[in-house]
């Protein structure tokens, strides 16, 4: 043993005698993670969150979240002498007078946009591969919670600089709060400290934005990652991969090096974007006053679909007992997202109720092998995209010389027609892909080589695929639909007959698929 090793050993021993975690660390460092690009989307979320924390901390050093009036005397000429809030003035100072301030602001905002985009991408990966199934339902719900927190945190961050766009967003926020029946106006008064825009809202959301919500984020992210750690990562099917093992690289050294390097790559991409592309140029928007608004006012993209739903809502209102119920805001901004997010959170339980599958799953599904779920996912994406298109209707209208009214009617009709259409098309596509897989297993790869037989006949040579590939294409299980009869064995009508009928229908739809290739099929084809 060299002196250096001896010294290191002594130091390690000193720490271990006081902490006693050596055994746990040793076990943990041998933990294995499977390798797939889509498994790194969650890492993008985590790394951009770290970047948000760092850049956000930098911004708090100069930001003044106060709504008190000041006269701007900074370096930006077109706003000199204009009355504005201290929040807006300090954001201008960060942008123009703090060294590296504008870059930090842009890093913070681009990181936020990428954070939310990565969450959505990560969520889609988990959904389409069925990674949310037992035992990971709770972690799925935590993920939905993180997404929801992200909406709120993003909205608050967008509102804090108190520029014209921020204020417009807050105006809509206050309108949505006021649309809650009975208590809405009271809640709005309490939050804003009076009638809109009030004097207290910015300092309040500042505390939430920099303290409470990041704290909640940290807590939920920790549980989220700990659960992945404890329950182990899922993996795609392949030879040697089972429900009982994990195939991949151990944490040290390969995985750690890759993950650590990937952090710097994510940081690099965000810093690159922030260096070359302007985001939220608040000095152009001007300070917020309730009397002003800009054409083409838009929320950040992750709120854009909600804005689009509000924009397409017909002007329905009910007046009763001295109260106004604004259905035009209540339905698109609260009821529809409420239903969507509740449905999304409970989807793992809904699916297991439909399939009757209560087993643990650690092997992922290939999306085509579960056509119903995949189609449902694409249907949801279509819904959000139609809403998002309508959210940007004014921008689309000016830039593509369209009529804003036509876009609105397209979305009003499209929001009902296109998602079901996407469902049907996706399901057919999945079945076609299954058919292609089946062909590949049975007939092999088309080589493009034509051979002329002695008889004069031309045939194309097909090469059999590798056993590994054949395994991947045939290893999935195909559970049959639930058999739920309306009567029991003695012919007595069961309670909850309608519920069973619905469940059987759903189960049947879920189990649709091409029968996968069996060894009998293969043997038969070998005879030919």
């Amino acid at each position, binding site marked *: 043993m060299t002196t250096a090793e001896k010294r290191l050993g002594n130091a390690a021993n000193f720490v271990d005698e006081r902490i006693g975690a050596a055994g746990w660390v040793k076990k943990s460092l041998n933990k294995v993670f499977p*390798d797939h*690009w*889509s498994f*790194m*989307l969650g890492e*993008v979320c985590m790394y951009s969150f770290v970047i948000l924390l760092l850049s956000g901390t930098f911004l708090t050093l100069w930001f003044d979240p106060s709504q008190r009036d000041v006269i701007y005397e900074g370096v930006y*000429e*077109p*706003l*000199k*002498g*204009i009355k504005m809030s201290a929040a807006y003035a300090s954001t201008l100072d960060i*942008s*123009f007078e703090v060294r590296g301030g*504008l870059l930090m602001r*842009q890093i913070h905002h*681009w990181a936020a*946009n*990428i954070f939310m*985009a*990565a969450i959505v*991408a990560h969520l889609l990966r988990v959904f389409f591969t069925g990674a949310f199934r037992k035992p990971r339902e709770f972690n799925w719900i935590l993920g939905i919670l993180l997404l929801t927190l992200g909406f709120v945190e993003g909205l608050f961050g967008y509102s804090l600089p108190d520029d*014209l766009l921020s204020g417009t967003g807050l105006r809509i926020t206050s309108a949505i709060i006021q649309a809650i029946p009975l208590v809405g106006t009271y809640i709005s008064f309490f939050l804003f400290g009076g009638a809109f825009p009030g004097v207290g809202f910015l300092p309040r959301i500042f505390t939430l934005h920099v303290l409470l919500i990041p704290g909640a984020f940290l807590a939920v992210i920790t549980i989220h990652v700990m659960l992945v750690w404890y329950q182990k990562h899922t993996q795609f099917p392949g030879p040697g991969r089972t429900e009982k093992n994990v195939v991949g*690289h151990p944490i040290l050294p390969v995985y750690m090096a890759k993950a650590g*390097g*990937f952090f710097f*790559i994510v940081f690099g*991409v*965000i810093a690159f*974007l*922030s260096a*070359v*592309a*302007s*985001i939220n*140029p608040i*000095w*152009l928007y*001007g300070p917020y*006053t309730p*009397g*002003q608004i*800009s*054409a*083409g*006012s*838009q929320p*950040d*993209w*992750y709120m*854009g679909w909600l804005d689009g739903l509000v924009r397409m809502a017909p002007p329905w209102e009910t007046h009763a007992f001295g109260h106004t119920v604004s259905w035009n805001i209540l339905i698109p901004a609260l009821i529809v997202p409420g239903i969507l997010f509740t449905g999304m959170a409970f989807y793992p339980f809904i699916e297991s109720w439909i399939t009757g599958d209560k087993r643990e799953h650690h092997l992922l599904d290939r999306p085509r092998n579960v056509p119903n779920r995949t189609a449902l996912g694409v249907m949801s994406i279509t819904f959000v995209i139609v809403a998002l298109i309508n959210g*940007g*209707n*004014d921008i689309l*209208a*000016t*830039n593509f010389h369209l*009529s*804003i*009214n036509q876009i609105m009617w397209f979305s009003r009709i499209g929001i009902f027609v296109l998602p079901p259409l996407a469902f049907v098309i996706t399901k057919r596509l999945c079945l076609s892909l299954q058919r292609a897989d089946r062909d590949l297993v049975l007939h092999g790869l088309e080589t493009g080589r034509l051979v002329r037989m002695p008889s004069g006949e031309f045939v194309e040579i097909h090469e059999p695929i590798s056993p590994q590939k054949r395994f991947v294409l045939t290893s999935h299980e195909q559970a049959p639909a639930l058999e739920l009869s309306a009567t029991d064995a003695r012919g007595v009508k069961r309670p909850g007959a309608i519920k069973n009928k619905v469940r059987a229908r759903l189960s049947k739809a879920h189990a649709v698929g091409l029968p996968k290739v069996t060894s009998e099929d293969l043997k038969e084809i070998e005879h030919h």
Partner: protein
Amino acid sequence: MKRLSRYRRHRAAGPFLLVVALLAIGTTFNVASATVAQSPNSFARTSAIEEGRQIFLKGCSSCHGLNAEGGAIAPSLIGVGAASVDFQVGTGRMPMADMSTQAMRKAPVYNAEETAALAAYVASLAPGPAIPTDAVLNYERDGSTAEGGELFRNNCAMCHNFAGQGGALTQGKYAPTLMGVEPKYIYEALITGPQSMPVFSDKTITPAEKLSLIKWIKSAENEPNLGGATMGRIGPVTEGLLAWVLGIGLLIGIAVWLTTKAR
């Protein structure tokens, strides 16, 4: 003399004399009328109005009526003033390329002289806003950028966007971009209210304030892109697009690359 008298009774003498006489009258008229056009003062204005009327009859009257009284598809031009004509014709909006929702800016059909003649003709029909002179338009000296910004956000941004990039109105109509628009035309648009735009009279926005507005618009036009590429200065839509396409796109590409190398 002998030669002349010899041909005096020639067959072609009559027609020849007729041609000479016509040429003489024509030349005299031409010279005479040219002299009239060159002389300044009220006489010139009358002729510009006349010239404008001729252009109007050829190019505009089929829609606006023979006496500019308007018709089923075009408004009356009586009382719209020279500023209105200068704006509409000078920016190429009139004559319209087609009868779609809105006349758009394009290369002008008439040159400066013809436009001035048209303006003079329309202004002669009834009093209306006049074309602002260069002396009036000295926005660099008489305007204030900060005040202009405040006025812009109060009066213009709701249609023309916070940075004057233009925005959508109903039924395919739109507020055009203000980038690259000459100060004269901005001023004329303010006092005449073309198409969907309201009139901002000198009582609503004083001439000095109008110059401030112009100064702010010009400063927005010349403002360097402080934060990097602006992607059209139209707000979060293009930002979100870039975050997905370039940001997530690049990161997924790198993730694919990282995991492929390991195999």
